[in-house]
């Protein structure tokens, strides 16, 4: 009897296993994670780094924080007046998109005149005109809770449209950079369709589903649970601004949530994901072994350096960090090679100056400033030192060569491009002298502050939400501790944004410097550093001066920038003065570019943007990534 029962159990288990297998084998396309009924050769599958979208059916990007932006909506369905690519662009970094030309300001920068392109149509057949631009501004101003309302309310007095192709912005106060709001770096103020929104009672609560598109693609279908979006090339793609560069090759684009890093690697190896937005260095190293994978750099360090500058950001309203000597002392305790290895396993592009080492900046700032940096002297109170070591980039390359072999370039220019040039020499003796001049004393192995209490530094990091930066922060804390400072990692996880604005930190790993990358104007971040915007301790700090630092000379430089045009060559000279001031004062310790490990698979599509052919930023959630679709080609 017992035997009979066991036979039945075995039969049941076998049947269950067989059913599972049969069930999974009946639809192999599903198993491959590829959209049904769409030929793979007509489809590009890209990662949407926003993950799963809670509110998948929401396409009104002009409402705050309501739905997804990077699901293809801002990349291929929307458009605005201008784009500046962080790299070289197809026809230069600056692209007149909906605008026919660059903005024209009056003498005192209180009026901006824009000439628009004609012959551009919305996907429902209505022609785009100046009325759409005016409606975009008017609706934002009338509804102060919308995404772009605040900036438009504080800048725009009125918008005039003398004809269908001319828009005149009358500004409330001089602003020589007003056009930046309608210029895509990652995003910009997207133009909305007047003929749709004028019929809507409350634009804040309007879902804009199905979206009417101004870009070359229109929505095909989406997952109500927010895992995927599929966009289809418009039949009339010639009537969009992207049409100037030819037909976008993929008929379909799918923006998907591929899940955690391990699954992204599996998905790309399974040919289910053409472009991974970003992945940990270790994931990139795994993918690099795959012949079909291409990254920004062909070999090490692979990643695309974003025009963003990770740094140690001090809260300069903290008593310790009010003192420039203390900030410099902490900088001289950082070993850049160890930080780069800990954070990026060496795959980083370092920068000693407070400008990201990417796009056009190395030629405008990093290389011309080398001589000044080499000669820069720092007075420690006991002696003068020259802290700059121009060979750090080369040292990193040399350190990696034994393990990475030929992937590490040998040419000095290539090394500088990939790994950066120099950084500050670790100099504990100089740090000691600087701290002593600031009134600090070492008792035993412990540094004490001028008040006689232990010198304590908390370095805030985001934890597993941003592992690369967390690893950099942990290494820096270790180096400070070895010197006798009571340094600790302050794990913020999801609270970083709130604490950063509230000034609730000693220091943190993050960035307050973000630039265009493809243009040398630094006002994108610098203007918000004016002392007029520095919050009182305990009050909320507007972005981006998280260090709450002010300096009369900085104010002067910002005011000079405001008084000149965007393309004025004097801008770079002002930028160099800013670099010198930042080196002297060290309110943040610049570390390196924010390298994004975008992995592109060449099995189905080729011609991706790379360091050898830098026509666009390849990072999939940037609005600028739309230019890829007219340059990539189906693989043979």
């Amino acid at each position, binding site marked *: *009897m*017992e035997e009979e*029962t*066991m036979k039945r*159990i*075995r039969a049941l288990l076998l049947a269950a296993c067989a059913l*599972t297998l049969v*069930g*999974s084998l*009946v*639809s192999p*396309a*599903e*198993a*491959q*994670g590829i959209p*049904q009924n769409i030929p793979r050769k007509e489809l590009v599958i890209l990662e949407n780094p926003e993950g*799963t979208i*809670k*509110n998948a059916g*929401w396409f009104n990007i002009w*409402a*705050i*924080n*309501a739905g997804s932006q990077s699901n293809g909506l801002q990349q291929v369905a929307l458009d605005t007046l201008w784009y500046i690519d962080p790299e070289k662009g197809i026809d230069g970094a600056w692209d007149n998109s909906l605008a026919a030309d660059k903005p024209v300001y009056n003498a005192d920068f209180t009026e901006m005149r824009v000439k628009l392109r004609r012959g551009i149509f919305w996907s429902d057949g209505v022609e785009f005109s100046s009325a759409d631009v005016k409606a975009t501004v008017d609706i934002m101003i009338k509804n*102060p809770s919308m995404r772009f*309302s*605040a*900036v438009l*309310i*504080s800048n725009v007095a009125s918008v005039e449209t003398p004809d269908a192709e001319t828009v005149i912005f009358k500004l409330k106060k001089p602003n020589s*950079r007003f056009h930046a709001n309608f210029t895509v*770096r*990652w995003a910009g103020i997207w133009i909305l369709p007047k003929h749709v929104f004028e019929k809507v009672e409350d634009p*804040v*609560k309007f879902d804009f589903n199905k979206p009417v598109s101004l870009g070359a693609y229109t929505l095909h*279908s989406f*997952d*109500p*649970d927010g*895992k995927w979006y*599929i966009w289809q090339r418009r039949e009339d793609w010639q009537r969009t601004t992207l049409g100037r560069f030819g037909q976008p090759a993929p008929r379909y684009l799918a923006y*998907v*949530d*591929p*899940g955690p890093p391990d*699954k992204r690697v*599996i998905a790309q*190896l*399974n040919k289910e994901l053409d472009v991974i937005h970003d992945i940990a260095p270790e994931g990139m190293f795994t993918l690099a072994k795959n012949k079909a994978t291409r990254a920004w750099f062909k070999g090490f360090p692979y990643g695309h350096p974003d025009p963003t500058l990770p740094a140690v950001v001090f809260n300069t309203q903290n008593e310790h960090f009010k003192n420039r000597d203390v900030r410099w002392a902490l900088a001289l305790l950082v070993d850049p090679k160890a930080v780069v290895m800990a954070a990026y396993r060496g795959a980083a592009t370092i920068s000693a100056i407070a400008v990201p080492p990417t796009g056009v900046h190395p030629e405008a700032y990093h290389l011309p400033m080398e001589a000044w940096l080499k000669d820069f002297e720092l007075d420690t109170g006991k002696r003068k030192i020259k802290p700059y070591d121009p060979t750090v980039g080369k040292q990193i390359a040399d350190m990696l060569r034994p393990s990475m072999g030929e992937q590490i370039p040998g040419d000095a220019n290539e090394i500088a491009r990939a790994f950066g040039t120099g950084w500050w020499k670790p100099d504990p003796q100089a740090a000691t002298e600087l701290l002593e001049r600031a009134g600090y004393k070492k008792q035993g192995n412990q540094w004490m502050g001028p008040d006689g209490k232990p010198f304590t530094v908390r370095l805030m990091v985001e934890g597993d939400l941003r592992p690369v930066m967390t690893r950099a922060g942990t290494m820096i804390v270790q180096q400070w501790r070895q010197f006798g400072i009571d340094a600790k990692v302050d794990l913020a996880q*999801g609270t970083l*944004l*709130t*604490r950063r*604005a509230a000034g609730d930190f000693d220091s943190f790993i993050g960035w307050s410097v973000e630039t265009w990358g493809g243009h040398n104007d630094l006002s*994108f971040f610098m*203007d918000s550093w004016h002392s007029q915007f520095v919050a009182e301790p305990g009050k*909320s700090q*507007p*972005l981006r001066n998280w260090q709450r630092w002010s300096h009369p000379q900085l104010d002067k430089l910002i005011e000079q920038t405001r008084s000149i045009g965007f393309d004025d060559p004097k801008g770079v000279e002002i930028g160099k003065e800013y670099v010198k001031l930042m080196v002297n004062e060290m309110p943040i310790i610049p570390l390196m570019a924010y390298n994004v490990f975008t992995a592109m698979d060449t099995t189905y599509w080729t011609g991706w943007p790379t360091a050898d052919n830098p026509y666009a930023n390849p990072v999939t959630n940037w609005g600028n990534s739309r230019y890829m679709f007219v340059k990539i080609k189906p693989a043979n």
Partner: protein
Amino acid sequence: MRGYLAYFAKRFGQFALVVFIGVNLAYVITHATPIDPVEQSIAVVTSFGNTAPEAIEHMRRSLQELYGLKGTPWEQYVTFWSRILRGDFGPSLSAFPTPVAALIARALPWTAGLLIVSTLITWVLGNLLGGLAGYYQKNRSLKLMGVVAMALHPVPYYIVALALLVAFGFLWPILPIGGGSAMNVPQGWNWPFVSSVVTHSILPALSLILLGLGSWFLGMRSLVSNVVTEDYVIYAEVAGVDSRRILGSYVMRNALVPQVTGLAMSLGGIFNGAVITEKVFGYPGLGSLLVDAVYAGDYGLVLGVTTVSILGVSVCVLVIDLLYPLLDPRVQVT
């Protein structure tokens, strides 16, 4: 009957009190979080654009008004309860203006579908095999199963989940590794969608079953091992009662009583979602919704999901408590 009604009233009162305290605790904890939803929204909106600092201040004030974060804490608390009693959790702050209830309604069927099915399969298989192992203690296959169950039981969930992903998603790629259904298949009661949901749920369900099986198996084996030594079982064997009848009617039935309580608790717990399962397999559901809401400082959504969870567990415990006196004559209502 009067005694049962009094018991019912008492238990219902306890249920109401537990729910009230639980929801209040959730309210206090979510409002004590240092994450400010307004700052989170501003960061998302402005982190890539050039927005003037004074404009940010303007936006901050507008958002506080729009999100209903103005007013004293007491006013906000009263508004919260008046909404809850109407079944309205208000709008989600991280998906404004979509109602929290709509987000939960979208996620709940995925969580419930996956977890109810996998919990029931795990429970039935675990108890069946555990019962057999406890009764047929000399059977080598069942002994081996016990060893496997004990070996698998302490393995961290994500390791098993990742191993399954690598095995069936990469080395032998026969199963989808993410999502709840296939791309470009319209949701509805149609075969392509239903079959794709089933296919997509195999790996997450398998991971839950593999790790959940052990505790039911081991628990039931121990219970049965005790029951088989009871006098009435020995008497039945001596009297020549069919062994299948002894196993089914005498042993398993009695051993199952505590397992039914465990099942009810497990079913109640499904309203917490399965965070790691959902994250690893990219499966839609309440767990991911809750985690994302915590990071976004979305009080409304966190409270909505936790309230549903509190209600789920409490209702299941209440139902079990009310059914026990009817099912098990040893439980007396006084």
